[in-house]
């Protein structure tokens, strides 16, 4: 595992504010930094602004009529705003979007190949990586010739992940990678994240609801609520934090709480006054 402290900072988000449609203020001053070679997790409830943060980083907000109105985002010290999303991919930042976003009419394999769009290292290398992705996700090998639109939810998630890996990125922004995946596959995906991170030094910033797994694999975590960072720290420390335990890991003092007992009590997060 890499020590986040002394590594070089790859991505820096400084106090950004994001507004949709000129009226809806979603991010109210978010700052975070992602060290090179690390796995950083961005946690938080629904509508906290995780997706928005990731989209701001890869400059995809424009097509949703959102804009960064304050603050700056620097990738390797350069403002990302200056580059279009495609150029950012060439620079090594790729995002796996929430909700899969596969190209429905392309086959699974064609989907994966679009991931290699920006690569210049020739067909052989691309084929090799394709094999690698199929090794990671054997299910995709079986479905390679199917139109992505007709594959199951989980298969689409794998396709989206595989597509990102195909671009040989330096940094991957993962938005809810575990969503809709079977438990052993969730574990597997994070294993892959870990393997890619350690083996190839790829940096990860992942937004996750599945705090439990995320904090097991991440080095550092930020907790975002209501458009603000409410807590951050090394993953191990966060895991031990009683509030995190209670609200994000679903642990009570005697171990895991049962979902059947939820009816009996309900405590609110303090910091949401």
């Amino acid at each position: 595992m890499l020590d986040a402290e002394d590594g070089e900072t790859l991505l820096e988000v400084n106090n950004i504010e994001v507004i949709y449609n000129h009226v809806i203020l979603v991010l109210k001053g978010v700052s975070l930094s992602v060290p090179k070679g690390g796995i950083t997790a961005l946690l938080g409830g629904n509508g906290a602004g995780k997706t928005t943060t990731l989209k701001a980083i890869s400059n995809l907000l424009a097509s949703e009529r959102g804009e960064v109105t304050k603050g700056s985002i620097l990738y390797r010290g350069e403002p990302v705003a200056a580059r279009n999303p495609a150029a950012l991919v060439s620079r090594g930042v790729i995002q796996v979007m929430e909700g899969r976003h596969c190209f429905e009419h392309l086959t699974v394999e064609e989907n994966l190949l679009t991931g290699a769009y920006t690569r210049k290292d020739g067909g052989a290398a691309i084929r090799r990586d394709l094999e690698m992705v199929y090794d990671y996700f054997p299910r995709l090998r079986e479905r390679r010739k199917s139109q992505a639109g007709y594959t199951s939810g989980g298969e689409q998630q794998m396709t989206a992940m595989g597509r990102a890996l195909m671009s040989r990125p330096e940094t991957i922004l993962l938005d809810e990678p575990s969503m809709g995946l079977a438990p052993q596959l969730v574990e597997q995906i994070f294993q892959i994240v870990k393997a890619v991170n350690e083996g190839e030094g790829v940096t990860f910033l992942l937004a996750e609801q599945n705090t439990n797994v995320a904090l097991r694999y991440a080095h550092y975590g930020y907790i975002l609520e209501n458009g603000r960072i409410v807590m951050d720290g090394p993953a191990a420390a966060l895991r031990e934090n009683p509030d995190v335990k209670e609200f994000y890991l679903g642990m009570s003092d005697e171990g895991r709480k049962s979902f059947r007992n939820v009816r009996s009590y309900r405590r609110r997060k303090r910091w949401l006054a």
Partner: protein
Amino acid sequence: MLYREAGDFKTSYRDDGQTFPIRLDRVAYYAVLIVAFLIVPFVINDYWANAVVVPFLIYAIAALGLNILTGYAGQVSLGTGGFMAVGAYAVYKLMTTFPEINIIIHILLAGGITAIVGVLFGLPSLRIKGFYLAVATLAAQFFLVWLFNKVPWFYNYSASGQITAPTRTVFGLAVTGPSTSAAAKYLICLLFVFILAWVARNLTRGTLGRKWMAIRDMDIAAEIIGVNPLSAKLSAFAVSSFFVGVSGALLFSVYLGAAEVGEAFGINKSFLVLFMIIIGGLGSIFGSFAGAAFMVLMPVVLKNLLVGQFGWATDLAAHFELMIVGALIVFFLIAEPHGLARLWALTKEKLRLWPFPH
């Protein structure tokens, strides 16, 4: 902080469901009605009536109709011109066959006939979707125009195939025919617009409207939660065609007075009305009006400006007019893809927050 809803509490579901929940809007609405019904008729002249206001009102009905189909029910149609022709020829046949019956009834019947034709041509929508459907509705457009052109019964066997509206009166006041006053034309159109807009509003906020919108947003899901796509789509076609038929009837009988199908109800009409609702705002009653106003007024304003004010040659002005209208369409779409209605709503939303930015 004039414009806001704070303090404007609703205590019943009926109040909450009303058309203009904000008091200021309500006041503005009644003010517009008073001006439209009680003041304008006394000041309107031929030019304003014939060149601007009457076509605006009539197109607003057509736009409302198409908006129900395309904006609310999501079925893109390019057959509007053809359906307007059905309305026009229906009213012509009715007017000339039953001269003793009131024209208002004829116009409503013409709408009804158009609704039936609309349902017929709407049947393929059960299978065909999106742009395919749009192009398929062109079949209706071209076929209907051909039919009215080819079958002499429709134009009472006149030599040239033109139809001409005879004079008909309402309460002793001529509303069609050459001697109709500007005010009479205006009032009859206004009356139809007012009632139909109100009906459109009622339909779209209730059960039927929800069915339409559900089909529009995701037809499969709508079907699975219990919306019968057949009845939803066909009812949209029927209601929409009724509106369009009425507007065609008015266009011919009140506004043009004489018409030839290919010229007056050609494919350009279909596109024109579609432009209106997209520019105005899909799925918005207000948008239908805004779009109709834009597409009717813009060319007139530009022409008066370029030729009247700047004294340009008419052909240069006409070419520039095309360029400017085109550029404006693109400009508005970029500024707000959801049309003038959304632009207006956003402005209001900002006003509501004012003086805070968000």
